[in-house]
């Protein structure tokens, strides 16, 4: 029986085929399973990518929102400058129009057409002036107008965005990963990987050390963000508005005579004044840098420029009073050096000095004028440059000094015959004792007294005195075109002098509130603009696809995946925070590379070497 079976060869192929088919089917199932695992692994990497991008997107969105708010504030500030300048122009144009009308009336009937023209202009001018005045009072008046309130509101909105959007990104990233089937995920910015936890979730923008002057470049020169919005390259909203007003020139368009009188420069003058009040240089934009006129000798010395001093001479007629000295020849002095006895009421003294009492500041000062009123023939004698560059160059002029017939030359600062005065913040003249003693306007005064005997009727004589004054005045402390760090430092010093607080807003200097400041990017924000995502995917876990059937037979389970990805927030046009073009992109996982380098340095080389293959795979992806 057994021998017969051995000899029987029937159905052998079927057995072989069955065995082979089973093996093949098993292999096929394994291949399909493996293909599934690979597909899940690819999907996991895709999820890591969108997770990193989701976190980065919130930062990009925050930066774009802040850029939008900065641009809005730059436009509103520009509006205040233009409206206020135009409003200040109106009284002047009114006067010029009135003069023109009087002249035209006088030459009527020959000038009748011109008169009609002027009357037409008056009809146009009045509603324009009234509108501008109403706008200035309700909208653009410094600190109290609606525009200022809106600007402060926008700045607060920027604060809120800067504090929260990054944090929302931290929440959004794992949520996005979960929606795409990940078991767990998180995303952090690069600074956290570097161990910095103080600014977690905050966008890398700040108002610290910022001043309203940080709006200047955007207002005047614009930038890529303004070009994107249709502004001409190199022209910001303030310059754009100034150009429109210069073109409009509503009076001179109809009145060639007025154009000769220079309406555009009247507006430009007020425009420059308004810009300067914001801390901006009122001149037209200079792309190579910004020309700065210094106002103190310390600045002159710091920037190695040359100050300019002017010598004025003046003299009185022959007076009978021979007791006058330097203090009697300055118009307004503090009460404690009042030489008239200190008993006059301010109104009386003001009237004596021929000054409108309404213009007299608080009564801690009193006018003198005993000698000042006698000065008759002031003339500018000469100007003298005084270098601040080099050792020993103080910015003071070297002037003559005669002792016993011998001529010496001395620095004005050390000259024994000159008394040093300054003009204080309130416009009063004082003995130089404050930090304004080296500011423009400071002056040195010398009084030379000559006397004569005059014969009177009846044979008697009297002595008369003539006073001649020499005054050296610091006219300017030099100028220089600053750029880069030098310009930035200059503005920081200016801001410090103007009283910037750590909170950002700077005092307006007019006691009426604060100016807005822009949120700008902090220095070296790169790590805060990189987001690293880690995403896990575990087959067979709750809510996940099942594990492949063969996975239990291998010691290394291939069913749990961890994928890494890194996204960057970038702005190829400009990072000036006035350019609303922040975007996101994937990049090499440099943050992980750096972390592993440090792990290697800390003696964790095995981790680093294991992970380096992962990095290679991720970067190749």
């Amino acid at each position, binding site marked *: 029986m057994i021998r017969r079976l051995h000899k029987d060869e029937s159905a052998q192929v079927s057995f072989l085929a069955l065995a082979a088919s089973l093996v093949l089917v098993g292999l096929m199932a394994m291949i399909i399973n493996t293909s599934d695992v690979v597909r899940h692994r690819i999907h996991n990497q*895709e999820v890591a990518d969108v997770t990193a991008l989701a976190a980065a997107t919130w930062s990009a*969105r925050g930066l774009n929102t802040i850029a939008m708010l900065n641009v809005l504030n730059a436009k509103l500030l520009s509006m205040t400058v*233009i409206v206020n300048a135009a409003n200040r122009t109106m009284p002047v144009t009114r006067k010029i129009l009135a003069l023109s009308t009087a002249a035209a009336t006088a030459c009527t009937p020959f000038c009748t057409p011109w008169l009609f023209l002027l009357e037409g202009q008056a009809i146009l001018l009045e509603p324009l002036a009234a509108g501008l005045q109403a706008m200035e009072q309700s909208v653009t008046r410094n600190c109290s107008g609606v525009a200022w309130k809106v600007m402060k509101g926008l700045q607060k*909105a920027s604060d809120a965005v800067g504090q929260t959007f990054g944090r929302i990104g931290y929440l959004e990233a794992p949520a996005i990963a979960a929606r795409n089937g990940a078991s767990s995920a998180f995303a952090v910015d690069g600074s956290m990987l570097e161990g910095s936890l103080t600014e977690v979730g905050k966008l890398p923008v700040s108002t610290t050390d910022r001043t309203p002057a940080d709006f200047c470049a955007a207002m005047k020169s614009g930038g890529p963000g303004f070009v994107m919005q249709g502004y001409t390259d190199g022209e910001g909203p303030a310059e754009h*508005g100034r150009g429109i007003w210069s073109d409009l020139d509503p009076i001179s368009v109809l009145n060639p005579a007025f154009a000769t009188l220079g309406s555009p420069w009247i507006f430009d003058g007020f425009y420059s004044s308004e810009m300067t009040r914001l801390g901006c240089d009122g001149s037209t934009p200079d792309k190579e840098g910004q020309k700065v006129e210094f106002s103190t000798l310390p600045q002159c010395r710091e920037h190695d420029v040359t100050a300019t001093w002017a010598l004025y001479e003046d003299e009185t007629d022959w007076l009978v009073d021979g007791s006058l000295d330097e203090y009697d020849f300055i118009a307004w002095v503090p009460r404690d050096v009042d030489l008239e006895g200190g008993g006059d009421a301010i109104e009386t003294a003001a009237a004596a000095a021929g000054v409108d009492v309404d213009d007299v500041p608080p009564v801690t000062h009193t006018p003198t004028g005993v000698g000042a009123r006698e000065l008759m023939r002031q003339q500018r004698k000469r100007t003298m440059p005084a270098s601040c560059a080099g050792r020993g160059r103080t910015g003071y002029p070297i002037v003559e000094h005669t002792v016993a017939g011998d001529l010496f030359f001395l620095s004005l600062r050390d000259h024994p015959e000159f008394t040093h005065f300054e003009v204080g913040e309130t416009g009063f003249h004082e003995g130089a004792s404050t930090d304004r003693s080296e500011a423009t306007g400071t002056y040195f005064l010398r009084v030379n007294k000559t006397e004569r005997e005059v014969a009177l009727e009846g044979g008697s004589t009297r002595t008369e005195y003539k006073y001649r004054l020499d005054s050296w005045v610091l006219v300017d402390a030099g100028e220089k075109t600053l750029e880069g760090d030098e310009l930035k430092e200059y503005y920081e010093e200016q801001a410090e002098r103007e009283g910037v607080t750590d909170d950002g807003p700077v005092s307006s200097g007019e006691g009426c509130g604060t100016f807005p400041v822009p949120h700008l990017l902090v220095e070296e924000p790169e790590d805060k603009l990189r987001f690293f995502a880690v995403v896990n995917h575990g087959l067979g876990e709750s809510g996940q696809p099942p594990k492949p059937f063969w996975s239990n037979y291998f010691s290394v389970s291939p069913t749990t995946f961890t994928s890494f990805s890194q996204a960057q927030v970038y702005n190829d046009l400009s990072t000036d925070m006035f350019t609303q073009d922040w975007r996101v992109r994937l990049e090499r996982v440099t943050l992980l590379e750096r972390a592993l380098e440090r792990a290697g340095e800390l003696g964790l080389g095995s981790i680093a070497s294991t992970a380096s293959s992962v990095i290679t795979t991720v970067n190749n992806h």
Partner: protein
Amino acid sequence: MLLVFLIIPLWGLIFTMGYLGIRVQQTHEALSLSTYTFLLEREAGTDNPASSAQGTVSGSVFPGETSPLQVHVNDTEANAVADQMPEGELQTLQKLMGSVSGRSNIAVSVTREDPIGDFDTNPIRRAMVIGGATGTYCQMQDESLNPFAAGDVGGAAMALIGIAGMGSDYILAPFGGLSGGEAKCD
């Protein structure tokens, strides 16, 4: 017999599976590229970023094929994030920003044509949920992409800011607010 009943069907199956595997890989590649291209096109302010991404990806992943790829984008998950924000002082902002969080579901659909022709030709579909828009200036010029143009209260508030911004341009026309030129978003 063996050839007819075993070898040929097995090899046919293997070829088909191989084709499907390649097609699935292509679908994933298309999804990944479409997602990224969509983001770039949306940031650039392209009118129809999904269509643009579809054209770009079709040409690079499926050269020589006619309309094998369809990209669909659904922006219906605008408020998802707001629910996850903590209570407290951020609540107002949470409501405000919930509407602009925005999520998009990007779905790609790739046709398959089996080499044997014995099974249906349903396309392969893969989808991915991505985060919202970055809000570049040019992106916001397109109302359909404007993250500040959502319909609820928060969205309305943000839209108000946007309108204030645009409206102020007109009010400010002689005062520097209006650029005078067209936005350069090409």
